[in-house]
């Protein structure tokens, strides 16, 4: 007697079909709601070739300006990283549940960090720009928020994973609170902290570039201006320089990450 053997049971098959149908409905609904002007897109698509051609040119006359603005963006990113790291360290020491002086202080700090994280970085930067005006300082302060949101949370979770053993052993020697942290906790987490910081380098530079677009100084501001004046060669040059910078950073960061493993 022949018997067919199904690869999946009917229950999970049904689930897959339902999920497929659901995604299809969701996609069509979104497209319809967006009111996409497909006609324009198709008619413009013919011009894609010539636009692409414009983009293929580079304009090196403003290279000095581009480089100095790019340098400014990277500087903002690193300054925010250092500032954010300091704040995060303080928050972590008081916020990690296993070493906090008081449980409620820990809840408070964790809640505060969750609020920071719940608001996207661009919104933070826009709020700072709105209240402090355009400029580098706004960019710097605005960028510290997402940095603390990321590093603060990561630092706290690293410290909370320090085995209770270690803290107990330190206590038993008669060590003070500060000594328990500097001699017991920090040696356990320092490598992890370094790799959290290294991971954050890339996001900080990327965010620092995009925050220029909303008027907080740096290469982003230059890019917006070039786009506004349809200066294709300049746009290409800027994008190429950004690309090179990000690539270089990624290589360096990966090095650091393998070393601290």
């Amino acid at each position, binding site marked *: 007697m022949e018997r067919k053997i199904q690869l999946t049971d009917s229950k999970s098959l049904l689930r897959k079909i339902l999920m497929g149908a659901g995604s299809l409905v969701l996609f069509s609904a979104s497209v319809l709601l967006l009111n996409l002007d497909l006609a324009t897109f198709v008619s413009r698509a013919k011009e894609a070739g010539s636009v692409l051609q414009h983009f293929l040119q580079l304009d090196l006359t403003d290279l000095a300006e581009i480089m100095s603005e790019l340098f400014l963006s990277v500087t903002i990113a690193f300054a925010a990283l250092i500032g954010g790291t300091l704040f995060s360290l303080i928050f972590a020491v008081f916020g990690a549940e296993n070493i906090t002086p008081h449980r409620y202080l820990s809840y408070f700090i964790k809640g505060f960090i969750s609020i920071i994280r719940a608001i996207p970085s661009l919104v933070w930067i826009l709020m700072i720009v709105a209240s402090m005006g355009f400029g580098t300082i706004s960019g710097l302060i605005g960028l510290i928020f997402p940095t603390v949101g990321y590093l603060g949370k990561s630092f706290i979770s690293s410290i909370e994973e320090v085995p209770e053993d270690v803290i107990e052993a330190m206590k038993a*020697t*008669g060590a003070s609170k*500060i000594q328990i942290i500097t001699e017991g906790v920090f040696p356990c987490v320092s490598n992890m902290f370094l790799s959290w910081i290294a991971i954050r380098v890339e996001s900080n530079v990327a965010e620092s570039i995009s925050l220029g677009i909303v008027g907080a100084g740096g290469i982003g501001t230059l890019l917006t201006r070039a786009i506004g004046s349809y200066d294709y060669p300049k746009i290409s040059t800027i994008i190429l320089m950004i690309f090179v910078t990000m690539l270089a950073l990624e290589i360096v960061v990966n090095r650091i990450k393998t070393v601290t493993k």
Partner: protein
Amino acid sequence: MKGPLLKITNLSKRYDGNKIALKNITLEIQPKEFVVIIGPSGAGKSTLIRCLNQLVKPSEGEIIFDGEDISKAKGKKLRQLRGKIGMIFQHYNLISRTNVLKNVLNGKLGSVPFWVSTFGLYSQEDRLQAYNLLKTVGLQDSLYQQAKDLSGGQMQRVGICRALMQEPSLILADEPIASLDPKSSEVVMDYLKKVTEERDLTCIVNLHQVEVAKKYATRIIGVREGEIVFDGTSEELSEDIIKNIYHLPEKKQEVILPVPGFVAEGEAVYE
């Protein structure tokens, strides 16, 4: 010093208001005693030893150590008293990413200001003392090795050195050899016995191997369900008494599973 080093009166411990782990323990320990506490799992051995240096807060009772009530001490006073009590742990509790020498110097934490430890400003005398301690346990060649790269037996010897670095008058050891193979266990117990005798220290050790207890102890205390059921010398610890300590009438004894690696010949060996 005259009189007992440690005077425990009516010590009780109840975890989170639930089960009683220690019931009305009253006990005196004289200087230079090598006391081994034995008893079945869950008897309260660790709780007792941890109450002595307040890693566990007792629910009731009084612990007079070196003439002072450590159970009432707080803050600086407590740290100062803890500094006089060295502790050795089952899992060594070393700082794994820190080198051997610094791990031993951590024993000084109770007596140096924080900047000395934070910035590595230990005096040459302290460093030399740490070196000499490591030499007595045969680890003088591993000063700069990270603790995580040592074997279990070596880690425990570093643990002993850290405790001795405190220049304590009392050493507590909670199952110091429970994670070691028989050979390393013997080495570690021999060192522990030797260094405490040389320095006239008092030592309280939790063990679950009765044979080892008999070999090293000057006094054995049997604990069962939070109460002391035996207190005497190795000679007085008879088979019947051992049975009594380990026998739990109402409860079922825990089933002891075979340990992988200790299977009989011909049986599967786990990786």
